[in-house]
């Protein structure tokens, strides 16, 4: 299987009052066709920045460097903005958290949805095209599991529940059959039932249309079983990446292990006992530790951790730690 998205050592630097800060520090990510990849990171880990860098929502003040930022056979960093927008518009789509707040509150959802259907896919003369547009919009809503399409098309975002609004935004995202869908915390603050519906829908879309999905979440509990691979990011540094099942069962990195324990995956955990946790708080942008940024909070940190560890590779499983939980022979 070939990678359609290939990111090697992506670094994003920001100018702050405390000098230049690397918000993303040498992040690598590969995404194969039709694959669901979950990116897990706490707040401030730069996971949304990564999504923005892929989509090209770039603030001119950011300094982006990468050994490789390739989408299929295009080098995204070498393209000019016009070409880049064309490729992004054709192949990628993104959904966000809080759908109710980013849909246009003044426009009926039907109009917003009709707008997203590309002109090139409609045939016929003016009136026929217009009618086709509505038919296609309805079909899109059916595809995301909304039965009463007409009612939804005639309502404003505030009149719908969060789950339905998120489904509409997914419909808008898949209107032009993108190859890559980036879901940036699509279900934060939703109740479990709605959340499961959204996840099931995304998994189904990926399976039926071969769409790759980059799912960005905060929490290990929202990693879905359909996700083949996952990565953990902490403060802009890649901690561990590999097949989901491997990471969940045999983590190499202390951070992954801590996250697993904090997410109640430990079955032997006795109720009412203290939860294992990382000490301290997530560092702010101005006070990033040098070397491995988990250092000050890591239970296994030692002197060597002031140098950033390189990625070690065990089969498909990669991690960046000097003192992994399972001893391995490193080849480099």
């Amino acid at each position, binding site marked *: 299987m070939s990678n359609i998205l290939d990111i090697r050592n992506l670094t994003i630097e920001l100018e702050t009052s405390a000098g230049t800060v690397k918000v993303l520090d040498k992040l690598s990510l590969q995404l194969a066709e039709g694959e669901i990849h979950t990116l897990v990171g*706490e707040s401030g880990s730069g996971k949304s920045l990564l999504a923005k860098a892929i989509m090209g929502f770039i603030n001119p003040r950011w300094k982006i460097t990468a050994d490789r930022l390739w989408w299929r056979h295009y080098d995204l960093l070498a393209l000019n903005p016009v070409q880049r927008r064309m490729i992004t518009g054709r192949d990628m789509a993104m959904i966000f958290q809080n759908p109710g707040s980013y849909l246009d509150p003044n426009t009926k959802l039907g109009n917003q949805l009709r707008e997203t259907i590309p002109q090139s896919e409609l045939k016929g003369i003016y009136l026929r095209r217009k009618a086709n547009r509505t038919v296609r919009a309805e079909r899109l809503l059916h595809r995301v599991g909304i039965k009463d399409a007409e009612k939804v098309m005639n309502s404003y975002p505030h009149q719908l529940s969060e789950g339905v609004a998120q489904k509409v935004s997914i419909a808008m995202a898949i209107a032009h059959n993108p190859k890559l869908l980036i879901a940036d915390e699509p279900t934060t603050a939703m109740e479990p039932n709605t959340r499961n519906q959204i996840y099931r829908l995304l998994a189904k879309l990926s399976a039926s249309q071969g769409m790759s999905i980059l799912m960005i979440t905060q929490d290990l509990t929202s990693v879905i079983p359909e996700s083949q691979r996952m990565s953990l990011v902490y403060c802009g540094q890649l901690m561990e990446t590999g097949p989901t099942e491997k990471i969940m069962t045999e983590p190499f990195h202390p951070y992954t292990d801590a996250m697993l324990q904090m997410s109640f995956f430990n079955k032997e955990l006795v109720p009412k006992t203290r939860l294992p946790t990382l000490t301290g708080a997530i560092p702010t942008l101005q006070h990033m530790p040098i070397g491995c940024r988990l250092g000050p909070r890591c239970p296994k940190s030692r002197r060597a951790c002031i140098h950033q560890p390189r990625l070690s590779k065990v089969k498909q499983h990669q991690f960046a730690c000097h003192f992994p939980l399972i001893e391995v022979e490193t080849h480099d």
Partner: protein
Amino acid sequence: MTDLLEVRNISKYYSYKNGWLTPQRVCALEPISFSVKRGETIAIMGETGSGKSTIAKLISGAEVPSSGEIFLNGELLDPNNHQQRCREIRMIFQDSLRSLNPQLTIGKQLLESLLFNTKWSAAEQQEHVYVTLQKVGLLPDHFDFYPHMLSSGQQQRVCIARAIILEPQIIVADEAFAALDPSIRAQIINLILDLQEDMGISFIFASHSPEIVKHVADKILIMHRGKMIEFDSTQALLTNPKQQLTKMLLQSEQLNKALKHTTTQE
């Protein structure tokens, strides 16, 4: 042993005008009764709009019930006696930054509740704030900080400090864990468990997360459309749920089913 808190047939209706002379009533909570023992933790679960937050608001006195009474230690709580209510029952909210006053320092916000509810001298009050800050894992130095200068975890700690500063008997939390990062959330849960052990506080919280509920709660109250459909100990509900909804709400996330996870030992 008498129950610490007893809720008897409490209900809440909201009325609004619908056109000309036709007042409409919406039932947010149908009459429910339950009781809480000292040091016990009760979780309220349910879908959106099921009346979880209404219960929390009624117990903490933020809203006046349409009918029914609340007894604390066998004594009737007057809905209009705010001083008694806020000394014994305190509340924590979901969004910590928005529930703190951005214009006051942390210390001043904590002092406020002492100012209105105790007859201590200024020095005693200040000392008590320092002690409380240390109890929740902050430093006395945080007295002069403004809320925006703290991280989200520290802000939530301040909210907890504000809740325990009057040494209440009951703390009510409405989705206090939902918006926190996993590592911070675990710290806050530990903090609440510690405080509960030290001070014998009863804790009533509304939550979506089945994992947290299973870990923290002694009893679970399941709400559906303003009705209480089940109320039993966590163990009983986990092993033998009577309602389909209970089963659904307590079911862990999908991944738990898909993966037989065993955490690695070092």
